[in-house]
């Protein structure tokens, strides 16, 4: 059955009074090989789930840090096929960790919806979030996802109205991605705590567990997200910035990633606050 991995993770974390720490990295940044060791380090140091990007030439929802990650991977010759091959290897090593994809629509449309989702399911992807397909345009993508037993993940932005919350609660599976603030991805501007009432509404509507992303770059942000009622927090640009800074020096890179991941994970342990 689909979503088992997310359900298992969230219920296991709830038993321990913990939230989920979910790092985002771009697959193939800076190369496929190095990307694999980076993800190994994230998991070894406490990542509860993975949010993984497939590099795209025109990432309109992303700030400069993630744009440069797309660019590094594309220059290294990374293709969607190579990314899915990498996920297959990760799945073999880590049978239980939830793996979500974050992609742009054209990569799915080009491949064909059925083919893309079936391929993703075959290599062990649990969920797919499309940055540039809003709920109002999502019907055929959700149908293709459901047919391949992939959980479609939908976004709740700060300007979401009640209609959108109701539809997201009905359609988003695995988890719900709540934006911590307006704008594009980036660690330069902090998340804003405007989402508390929306998180409450989503819970009342029996939505999938909520996770906050955008502007999460410190352990304090993780605590704020969980205190606001989220079940987890996603950090992307802060991690990708470490990869950008240190990727020519693998020792420094893995030390920095390990330390950052441990601190962020520690902040999810609400029982210790």
């Amino acid at each position, binding site marked *: 059955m689909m979503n088992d991995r997310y359900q298992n993770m969230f219920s296991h974390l709830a038993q321990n009074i913990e939230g989920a720490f979910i790092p985002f990295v771009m697959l193939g940044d800076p190369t496929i090989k190095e990307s694999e060791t980076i993800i190994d380090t994230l998991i070894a140091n406490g990542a509860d789930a993975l949010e993984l990007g497939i590099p*795209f*030439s*025109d*990432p*309109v*929802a*992303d*700030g*400069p840090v993630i*744009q440069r990650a797309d*660019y590094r991977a*594309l220059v290294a010759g990374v*293709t*969607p*096929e190579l990314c899915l091959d990498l996920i297959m290897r990760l799945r073999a090593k880590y049978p239980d960790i939830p793996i979500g994809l974050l992609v*742009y*629509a*054209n*990569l799915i*449309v*080009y*491949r*064909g*919806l*059925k*083919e893309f989702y079936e391929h993703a399911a075959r290599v062990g992807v649990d969920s797919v979030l499309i*940055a*540039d*397909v*809003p*709920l*109002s*345009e999502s*019907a*055929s*993508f959700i*149908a*293709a996802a459901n*047919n391949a037993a992939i959980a479609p993940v*939908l*976004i*709740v*932005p*700060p*300007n*979401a*109205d009640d209609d*959108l919350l109701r539809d997201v609660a009905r359609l988003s599976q695995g988890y719900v991605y709540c*934006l911590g603030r*307006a*704008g*594009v991805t980036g660690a330069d501007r902090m998340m804003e705590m405007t989402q508390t009432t929306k998180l409450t509404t989503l819970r009342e509507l029996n939505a999938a567990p909520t996770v906050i992303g955008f502007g999460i770059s410190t352990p304090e942000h993780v605590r704020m997200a969980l205190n606001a009622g989220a079940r987890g927090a996603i950090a992307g640009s802060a991690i990708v910035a470490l990869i950008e800074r240190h990727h020519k020096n693998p020792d420094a890179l893995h030390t920095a990633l390990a330390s950052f991941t441990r601190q962020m994970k520690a902040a999810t342990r609400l029982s210790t606050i």
Partner: protein
Amino acid sequence: MNASSYSIQSTQGNFGVFGGMYVPEILVPTLRATARAFEEAQTDPAFQQELKQLLSEYAGRKTPLYRCRNLATHTKAIIYLKREDLLHGGAHKTNQVIGQALLAKRMGKTRLIAETGAGQHGVATALVGALFKMKTRIYMGSKDMVRQALNVFRMRLMGAEVVAVDNGSRSLKDAVNEALRDWSENYSTTHYLLGTAAGPHPFPTMVREFQRVIGEEAKAQILEREGRLPDAVIACVGGGSNAIGMFTDFIPEKNVRLIGVEAAGHGLHTKKHGATLQKGKPGILHGSYSYVLQDEHGQIDESDSISAGLDYPGVGPEHAYLMTSGRAEYVGITDDEALAAFQTLSREEGIIPALESAHAIAYALKLAEASKIPQLLLVNLSGRGDKDVEHVIPQIVL
């Protein structure tokens, strides 16, 4: 498109299967509010009156329809030019920026952002920014800023801030990306004054409606002058706003050929061109499902053209529909052919066309040479060429 049991079908802003609103969720409320405001304005006599008055008194409508005195007179064809180059600002772009700026005011927005390639849309946005006293920021690829330095100065002279975009291909597509990123943060105060009949709904429809005055005027003018409709209407296509503005009123006239001229750059057999409809595949770029130049993995390709305004790997979704439904034809003109037409029109008629419009002129000349029977050809001369002079000096020996 790949055969698939899940074909995508948008529920809003459709042209056949093309169009839609493929944007981050955060932009949907703003786009819907814009669509509502536009629909209301279309039936509001006060709005229409103000628009009409500004188009006339400020921008200089209606523009002349000129029957060429020398161009192609040795052939069986007669070439008419719709003189959008004489519009204030130097191109057809001014028509729709006045419409959108009035709409932005109506929605209570205080700031305008826009992308520009050739700089003509940036100049047009800068002039309405000055006119309506709105803070204006223009995103422009750094490659385009070099080849259109004169327009950068004009924008700044009128008080707009011009921001260089240094990522990707450093041209129009990347400027659109940057404007969308700005908008997703500042949507509550800012209107994104998109410059062409592409992008998410409602832009393709809104820009067409603000540009259709070109074809409406030209149709009436040629009927008055010739007593009949033209045999073919010809316009260049980058994103497609001047072409859709010229075509729209002729679409129901089944005997009038509609011909869109794309940038064939170094040649359609090379990778260096901007012929999205002829060489692209269906895909999603900048908010709509349309034709897109893309590689074998779905990554967006870089386009190439001597004319910055046609240097774009996407195209408006209505053109994709007009092509696939067979109503319009799309052809290519190379850099060299456009440059030759740029000189021919200058010498024959004393009119220096924009390099974009020179593509349409070049194709009209080809049709004229091939005409075996008398033909009336109507060309949209969408902009004037002053902005291109500096750029072409090294390529023309006088």
